[in-house]
């Protein structure tokens, strides 16, 4: 059992990291899209600029989730304790 403990904990922590790490960016992206929709509804002629900026902003926010994914992959594939 103790031999398997490190892999088990690693997999659990990787799943938890991605799961909880996705919450923040999801909320942030929701707010960003809602704000962009609001702005486009008020000013439809600015839709081009808004959506371009929105995409870049979303990619920036999404990077936070990607960071947790990288951490999870480090834990799974490059774990120093296995």
């Amino acid at each position, binding site marked *: 059992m103790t031999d398997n403990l490190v892999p088990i904990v690693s997999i659990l922590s990787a799943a938890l990291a991605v799961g909880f790490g996705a919450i923040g960016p999801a909320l942030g992206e929701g707010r960003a899209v809602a704000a962009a929709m609001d702005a486009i509804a008020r000013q439809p002629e600015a839709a081009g600029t808004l959506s371009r900026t929105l995409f870049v902003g979303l990619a920036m926010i999404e990077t936070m989730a990607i960071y947790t994914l*990288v951490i999870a*992959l480090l834990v799974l594939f490059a774990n120093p304790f296995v």
Partner: protein
Amino acid sequence: MDSPLTLETLFNIGPVPISAPVVVSWVIILALGLFAWLATRRLSLTPSKTQTVLELLATTVDGQIRDTMNRDPAPFRALIGTIFLFVLVANWTSLIPAVEPPTAHLETDAALALVVFVATIAYGIANRGIKGYLATFAEPSWVMIPLNLVEQITRTFSLIVRLFGNVMSGVFVVGIVLSLAGLFVPIPLMALDLLTGAVQAYIFAVLATVFIGAAAGETSGDAPSEKENKPS
């Protein structure tokens, strides 16, 4: 599932091991260089179709640099444009069967971010002089020196991890879906991958522009310092 963090050696040139991403990068460099040479061989005042597309691209890059830096884009056009095109083509090589994008490996991204890091310092010194560039670390006051030094490292690191994570996760997800369900299921994900690749190339280029622009200094602006001093 192979680990995305390790690399296999394809062959050795003398003592130097060569892996697949390096070969793919070489092919991309050769293809882009050859295309650029062929496409710009016969430039004329009445542009052909290819020349129109190229001019549109160059004008767009120029416009982005001018919007971000408030400067003449000429000294930065070559570097920023090359970075954008290389990252874009490298991200889109995932479309070719049996080819992994070189940006899905940490080493290629580290090399690209290192280029940006060195270019930041080089443009900073070229535009402000060594003393003037070192003085920017003490802005807005000398208390910020350690933070500014740490920022140099962390922003380069986040540049690496951002590109690596996004491209690698795309490849990874397509691989997982492919192993679960066969023929046509991964196609929407690959389409999403194309979008992510283009956006990430754009972001990488824009961030490089921002870093270089901040190091090179603005020609006439004093707006950023006002913003920073604003009480919050």
